[in-house]
């Protein structure tokens, strides 16, 4: 018989998009260099693309906040969306725009007005599954800059940021233990933080190694191979964590 299990309240997450929390790293250096120079974007447009949880939204919001651009959400684009006046605009999750015509309208209108446009998505725009020929040709012609998969130092910093965004205090030793076992992907780190948050909320306890083992057991690529005698106790000695940015 399965033991009864308390479900946690789905408390919403409010991640920080503060510029100070944007972690610079070789994996996003090229993208940041492009974002700092909108005047050099070919045709006034740029697409930012990369794997999930690599900070595309953070970078997009950082740029938009600094230049006073509105941020639109792709899944909310429909009809003939209002294009606020100004020097530019940003569309997050543009690769999953609710209506292709709405995105096309946005690109046309901003071109007429001379507004810069920044789009963000998981793939380069030339690979977005678009049916409208006019939109497809515009996307194929866009300059696109990739955010590369993060290196180990950034992964460690990302894990710390995800816990900080969730206002969850996690022992540095446990964080190092997690980093040694998580796949080297930003998405996996984000997913692990989300699962650990839910699990600790459900149990009403701290994020410990036993809790992490149970909560991350089904996470693809989460390994136990590096376990050794010195790492089995929660309060035991842990290897030093990677240097955070």
């Amino acid at each position, binding site marked *: 018989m399965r033991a*009864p299990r*308390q*479900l*946690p309240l*789905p*408390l919403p997450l409010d991640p920080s998009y503060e510029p100070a929390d944007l972690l610079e790293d070789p994996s996003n250096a090229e993208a940041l260099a492009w974002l700092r120079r909108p005047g050099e974007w070919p045709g006034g447009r740029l697409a930012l693309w990369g794997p999930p949880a690599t900070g595309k939204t953070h970078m997009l919001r950082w740029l938009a906040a600094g230049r006073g651009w509105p941020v639109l959400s792709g899944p909310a684009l429909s009809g003939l969306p209002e294009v606020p006046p100004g020097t530019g605009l940003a569309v997050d999750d543009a690769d999953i725009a609710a209506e292709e015509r709405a995105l096309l309208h946005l690109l046309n209108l901003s071109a007429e007005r001379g507004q810069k446009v920044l789009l963000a998505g998981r793939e380069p725009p030339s690979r977005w599954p678009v049916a409208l020929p006019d939109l497809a040709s515009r996307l194929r012609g866009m300059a696109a800059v990739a955010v590369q998969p993060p290196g180990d130092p950034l992964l460690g910093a990302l894990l710390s940021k995800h816990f900080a965004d969730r*206002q969850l205090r996690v022992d540095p030793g446990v964080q190092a233990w997690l980093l040694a076992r998580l796949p080297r992907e930003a998405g996996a780190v984000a997913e692990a933080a989300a699962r650990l948050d839910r699990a600790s909320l459900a149990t*009403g306890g701290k*994020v410990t190694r036993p809790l992490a083992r149970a909560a991350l057991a089904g996470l693809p690529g989460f390994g136990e191979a590096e376990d050794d005698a010195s790492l089995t106790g929660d309060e035991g000695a842990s290897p030093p964590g990677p240097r955070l940015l």
Partner: protein
Amino acid sequence: MRITVERAILFRALAHVQSVVERRNTIPILANVLIAAQEGALHLTATDMEIAMVEEVPGVRVDRPGRCTAPAATLYEIVRKLPEGATIQFDQAGGDAPLALRAGRFQTSLAVLPVEDFPSMTEGKLPHRFSLPAAQLRDLVDRTRFAISTEETRYYLNGIYLHATESEGTPVLRAVATDGHRLARVEQPLPEGAAGMPGVIIPRKTVNELRKLAEETQDEVTIRLSDTKIRFEVGTVQLTSKLIDGTFPEYERVIPRGNDKVLRVSKKAFADAVGRVAAISSERSRPVKLSLDRNHLLLSAASPDQGQAQEELDQEVVQYEASPIEIGFQARYLNDITDLVEEQVEFRFADGSAPTVVTDVAKPEALYVLMPMRV
């Protein structure tokens, strides 16, 4: 310093302030109470660096003003054990000289620590000020504090979130607490002066001290606050506290709006049945399953070691017209809420794994959200 004070008056004040003092202190001065006598006034202060309580003690004869600090717990115990009606005299020559205490034939001498070492928490501007009746403050605290998280990992849930907002167009002062399993939200009409206040998270210990103070008065309690500090003025007592430096979650987003399976049940019949059925359970969480059908509620619990128990409630005390549903909750969570309900409790369910809204039919200004268990 030389003062004379009635035992009963001093005991009452010491009982308040010593409550703030932590039993185990690595900083010796925090175990002491600051005794400050000026012309015609005696003030006692205790702090743990997070909270400071200052009480003005009336009816004191000050023969020689002065200040000293003495061990709070020891002083409290001595005064507690003095006979009722005793008159106490304090005498301290200043500096490191011990504090002499005399009452009738009893006398003692207490070691002091330097007054200069006693931390001050009462400084700083508190730009927002408003007052509300003690009864309303008690209501805000009583209906929310059971849901405060005790898990230090999630520090931003270790208190009551107090803020000014609107409820259906009416300005209200709202208190919210959650431990991630349940959420309590209660409101009172917004007091004059509270409109521009920032939302603040009041720590659990402060809430508990405030509740004790609010018990003793029917008068207005004055609240002053800034982004980082709050002060409650209750009669002759000032309770100043740091606030929790965190962001309270956007709690409105976890309050379901569309739950349409409505159960109304007699609080007494329901709470008694939960208590009886849960007694069988050996689990710490004591899960109780509610099985609902038209005007019928079956409560059940099972334990691998002890067996199972169930109790039926029918249309005499149950109103339920929606489709059948099964849902489990921790017995303690159910009882914590029904303890606050007067006669009839209303549950609004969606399904067996979604948040449930609970209200007191007679007091709709208080609302609770309860997460179920998978049973």
